[in-house]
């Protein structure tokens, strides 16, 4: 039996992250003033706002301005895709693809690396946290900083608030087709971060089939030590548990690594005040010593009936 629908979205754990596309205001990027979502991201109704009553074709921009640049860009991507096939899977020689033990996925070596990330905070639902992303002082790291404020917006619906997140953008092939990361030959996530002692949460979103699974995210905690030294964090993928819209689920299963879409970092630790997190790089590695398949039980239903 199921409870009647509770219209109280809880955003304590990372809830469904709805990210804006961002304008690049050099040198820092911040969430846009108005909501702009890609068509592939789906609709988000901010709690407390009435539904927008527009015909489906009205928000589409039928201008030609983005057409010509777009054609050049997409044709270049298409050509690259075809030529990559001759080199090997995913553009790497096959021996390298099979045998490599470490792969760096995101490193922040220039302003264009910030374009791969989207930041968002609870200002989307009417809260007062701020978050900004910029390159570090020596152009080698990124700094995610801002202020957290957990006063909930007064819209009658929301009860908890106070979160900030940074999420990578879905990789796109030519003509804006979705591409996925294939991490099936790795089993550990390796990060080099320097935090301020706050506990963060890492979210990995994979490609799903059913629309109900759209907000399924695999989470795990990232505890920072604080201090002037960099911290190497290694989290095996077997530790990630599945949540849906921020609620941990009963039926757990291991994270499937063959079609990963995005990775993100969230802060929602209910401590109001400024925060910062510096990230040097994010990579995956294959740890031969780690043989665990999954850290939580799958053979028994929890809670037991």
């Amino acid at each position: 039996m199921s409870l009647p629908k509770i219209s109280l979205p809880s955003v304590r754990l990372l809830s469904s992250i709805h990210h804006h596309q961002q304008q690049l205001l050099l040198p820092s990027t911040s969430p846009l003033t108005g909501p702009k979502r890609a068509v592939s991201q789906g609709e988000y109704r901010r709690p407390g706002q009435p539904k927008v009553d527009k015909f489906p074709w009205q928000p589409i921009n039928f201008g030609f301005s983005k057409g010509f640049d777009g054609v050049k860009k997409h044709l270049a991507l298409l050509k690259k895709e075809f030529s990559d096939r001759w080199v090997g899977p995913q553009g790497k020689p096959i021996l390298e693809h099979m045998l490599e033990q470490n792969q760096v996925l995101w490193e922040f070596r220039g302003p264009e690396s910030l374009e791969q990330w989207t930041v968002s905070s609870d200002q989307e639902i009417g809260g007062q946290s701020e978050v900004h992303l910029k390159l570090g002082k020596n152009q080698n790291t990124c700094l995610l900083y801002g202020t957290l404020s957990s006063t909930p917006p007064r819209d009658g619906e929301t009860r908890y608030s106070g979160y900030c997140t940074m999420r990578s953008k879905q990789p796109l092939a030519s003509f804006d087709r979705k591409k996925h990361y294939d991490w099936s030959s790795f089993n550990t996530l390796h990060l080099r971060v320097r935090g301020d002692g706050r506990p963060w949460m890492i979210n990995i979103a994979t490609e799903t089939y059913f629309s109900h699974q759209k907000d399924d995210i695999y989470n795990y905690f990232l505890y920072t030590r604080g201090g002037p030294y960099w911290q190497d964090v290694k989290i095996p993928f077997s530790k990630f548990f599945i949540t849906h819209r921020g609620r941990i689920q009963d039926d757990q299963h291991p994270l499937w690594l063959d079609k990963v879409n995005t990775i993100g970092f969230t802060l929602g630790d209910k401590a109001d005040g400024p925060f910062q997190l510096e990230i040097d790089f994010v990579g995956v590695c294959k740890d031969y010593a780690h043989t665990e398949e999954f850290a939580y039980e799958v053979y028994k239903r929890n809670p037991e009936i």
Partner: protein
Amino acid sequence: MFCPMVLPAFHHGGVYRVISEGDSFLRTFVSRNVLFPESRRDGSTMKCARCLLQLQCLRLVGQSARSAAQHGALLRSTSSSQPDMLHNTQVLRRFHGSPACAKRRPVPAEFINEDDKKRDKSLVTHDDLFEQVAKEVKTKATFNKVVDVFIKRDIRRRGHVEFIYAALKKMPEFGVERDLVVYNKLLDVFPKEVFVPRNFIQRMFNHYPRQQECGVQLLEQMENYGIMPNMETKVLLVQIFGEKGHPMRKYQRIMYWFPKFKHINPFPVPQQLPEDPVDLARFSLTRIANDLDAKVTVYQLPSTDITESGEQIILPHIVGIQSPSQMQLLAQHSPSRPVFVEGPFPLWLRKTCVYYYVLRADPTPPDEKVEEPFDPERCLAFPLQLDLDLDRDFGDEESFDVEDLDEGPVFAMCMTSQGDQAVLNQWISGLQQNNPILGQVPTLFRLDAGPRELQGPADTESAHQHRTDPGPQREERQPEEDEEPRRSQGAKW
């Protein structure tokens, strides 16, 4: 411990499942109470466990009225204490209170202006009860008093759902939001056994949805504050909502996930941080030092002095930390290059933010770096340097293909309540006793507030001050050089 052991397979499947479930529950929960010291290990735990089992057996007796004869045979055949339970049925079945709470319930408190409240018959929310108490000091005792007033007021507990919602909202004001006893007492407000579904239709159709939602919200607030429920909570939930209700499911989820995530923090922060600023500084400095050999030195204890003119001078505490490897690095630092005192950097420990300052230097440029040869006698167990010319395969590459960041060595850290230059000067003079090179090296102060990171070498300083020092060269600006990424010295401290 008595438990009905083996029952023949009933077609009445629910009954059998209840028994076996209770058995496993009992074992796991008793064992769990042993593992977590915060649950009570005195008689009340065992009493809770016993009355839980009694409830289930009572339900067993109540449900299978048809097969009473079979039951009679079974119960007689099981352990001897069963007849005791049957005998005590009427005595133990408390309608409005849990047997575990019975002995501990205090003498009924005085009513707070009961008559005044009753006179006002208009429609008021239950916040009013709390508002009236709010005029006095808000403590746990007054909160308990309000709950007692509500309990005594009406045997049927009319409006208990709104009362519980109001109480949950007011808990942070009274400072009891982390107190499990208060949550159990609040859960006790629910009338017992009224909301337990009695047949499969009731179980199917979300029996008493408002009360179930209220119970779930209470547990959710407990989960929000990270409080682990105990056996008494479970007994109360079983008595109020039965074993298959939503609050029970939520309780089971809490009890499944909380123990898994309780100890995963590799840098744990205790719930109760030390009050004394010096102790707090000591704890946080050892946390960020990343070196077990590091030594904490208290350069100045906090004190208030009163000068002759009657002014109060508050001397802040200065606590510093330095490890032997940092001392070695500082000794190797060339006196021609300046060192920087940077800060304040934030460090969050649960909900408090403390600030620390760092003494560091820029990385040495590649031309000035001296590669000291490895002393082979430093470690006789295995060779530190191998001159083998072996190729490594792809499968053996164990490091990431990323340029190492070199931000320069960090020589010491300190924490103080007042972060101005005079205080930090005191710290540097204190450090100088162990690191005489600080007397010759120019020290620059970079004290800016705001989102802080260690400043890289290619920076112009916005606001910095010099430390008066017999230093031969005092450069106003850092030489702005674009450092090419290069291999770090690999010093692991």
